[in-house]
């Protein structure tokens, strides 16, 4: 069965746009992995949390989801810092598999606390976001998705600049490379861990603001993102910012084309199979990652 080229093109473009927001979610994850060398299993639940925060802010105060970006990013940065510094760090005694289990426990607690508060209903933002489209050539592109794409690229660029050009960024990279050496140079490792985790959560807050106009939220929505984000992270190479960006765009296209060819229920299959294959055969990732 063949599809007309404009439908395929539209699927590819749609996939790229969705993929850019996936990339933003994955960016937070890969940052935490690259520095703390831990897998934050609560990433999906924290994203769900951020999406509910956007929904509540927009619904009850009437501000635009794009205005919410800055305040929410600040709040989530603080939440992430506190979580890592005062809960995840102390509770896991510095052991990797403990961190995995602690974040799993957190994700179960957060997800079900949201379920208890908001019930299982699916919620959207009110307004006409769904009908806003931009015509590009023969294609109709959703405007919120286009904004999401541009904003994701900007945030990824800012993050990259922060890591490369600021003192905090240098400290983060130093801790990622050599924890003990960084400590000896007077860097407070616990503080940097907290900052990194906070930045990861701030990425989630931005992603949530960009997602909500074209997506929905329910207490389990993070689950759909978390394995996708992990796939992107391993695909791009754990800890690599450009890798996460490329990986995100690639996975977005795979999902979109998979959905077109196989239908929605099987479309996700491609992502998991890529995840398994990459981990089995190229655990260092595909895009320019160093072992």
């Amino acid at each position, binding site marked *: 069965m063949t599809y007309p080229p404009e439908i395929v093109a539209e699927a590819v473009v749609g996939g790229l746009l969705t993929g850019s927001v996936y990339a933003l979610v994955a960016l937070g994850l890969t940052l935490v992995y690259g520095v703390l060398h831990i897998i934050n299993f609560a990433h999906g639940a924290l994203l769900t949390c951020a999406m509910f925060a956007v929904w509540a802010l927009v619904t009850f105060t009437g501000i635009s989801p794009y205005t919410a970006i800055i305040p929410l990013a600040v709040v989530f940065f603080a939440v992430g810092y506190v979580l890592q510094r005062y*809960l995840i760090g102390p509770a896991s005694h510095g052991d990797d598999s*403990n961190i995995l289990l*602690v974040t799993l426990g957190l994700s179960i607690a957060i997800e079900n606390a949201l379920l208890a508060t908001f019930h299982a209903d699916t919620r959207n933002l009110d307004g006409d976001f769904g009908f806003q489209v931009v015509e590009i050539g023969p294609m109709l592109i959703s405007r919120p998705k286009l904004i999401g794409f541009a904003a994701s690229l900007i945030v990824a660029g800012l993050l990259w600049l922060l890591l490369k050009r600021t003192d905090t960024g240098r400290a983060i990279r130093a801790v990622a490379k050599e924890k003990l050496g960084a400590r000896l140079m007077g860097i407070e490792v616990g503080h940097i861990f907290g900052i990194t985790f906070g930045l990861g959560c701030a990425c989630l807050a931005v992603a949530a603001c960009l997602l909500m106009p074209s997506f929905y939220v329910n207490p389990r929505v993070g689950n759909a993102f978390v394995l996708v984000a992990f796939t992107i992270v391993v695909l791009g190479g754990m800890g690599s910012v450009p890798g996460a960006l490329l990986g995100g765009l690639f996975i977005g296209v795979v999902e979109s084309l998979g959905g077109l060819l196989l239908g929605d229920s*099987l479309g996700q299959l491609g992502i*998991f199979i890529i995840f398994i294959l990459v981990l*089995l055969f190229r655990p260092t990732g595909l895009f320019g990652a160093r072992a």
Partner: protein
Amino acid sequence: MKRSEWLFLVALLAALALVPLLASNLVINFLVTALIVALAALGWNILGGLGGQISFGHAAFFGTGAYVTELLQLRLGANAWAAAVAGIAAGALVGLAIGAAVFRARLRGSYFALVTLAFAEVLRILANALDVTGGASGLLLPLQPGAAHFQFDQRSVFAWIGIACVGAVLLLTRHMMNSRFGAHLAAVRENEDAARALGVDILATKLRAITLSAAITAAAGVFYVQYFLYLDANIGYGTWISIEALLAAIIGGVGTMAGPLIGALALHGLGELTRGFAGSITGIDLVIFGLLLVAAIAFAPAGIVGAWKRYVGGRRNA
């Protein structure tokens, strides 16, 4: 294992066996569900506790056991007991296959956890989409009470079979822990490189562990489907059973023999209590479970069993 612990376990199982004689159907139902989770957790503990390979995807084995048992009866008219044996064997085979792929690629730690989760999700999506597994509407096993069909009018019979299964697996675990294989597995858990240097075949040890672990968890799946007579992708391959098996084993006492059983009973007891207090608020019990997991890792790494031993040891020394 000390004699007093062994006596305690026998007494616990005997006490559980008395419950169906005295209690209402509701309580027996609670007991059977807890026993199913205990069985799955005992399986998880072989790989995750004794072998140190933490899996997030034991649903892959639970679901395979359940689906194979049900499908053989529904589609081929197989005898229920034969189907149950086939279900357990199929679960073990899936364990062996996943293990062969994953351990050969030397994935461990967090990578192992994530890849097992991905395997379970692949199976869930397939079972949800394919016609042979009934798709999203699931499969109903027709009610045919009778010992020949592995179905019983009396819930208490299920409870006793469950207790017998748990007892058998506990014996098996003890035998395993005292065997050469058990020693190899402990060596792999504590330090893989050192174990390799001492001549332990790492791959073979891990493969045996995951196969055995998968078989036991598959048995829990078989038991589930014979008891509830209904199965869909989110039950069989859903994350709930992966998580509950892990929670029960870790909160009960990871790597200990009795931990998974005690953990399953404690968690389900606590779940009933919170539901009793908090009424119809869905999810509140799982909030507590999640926080308990964090607390267990932070304060009681050897779970309830470890904390108890420390308490008793402290009193004896005082």
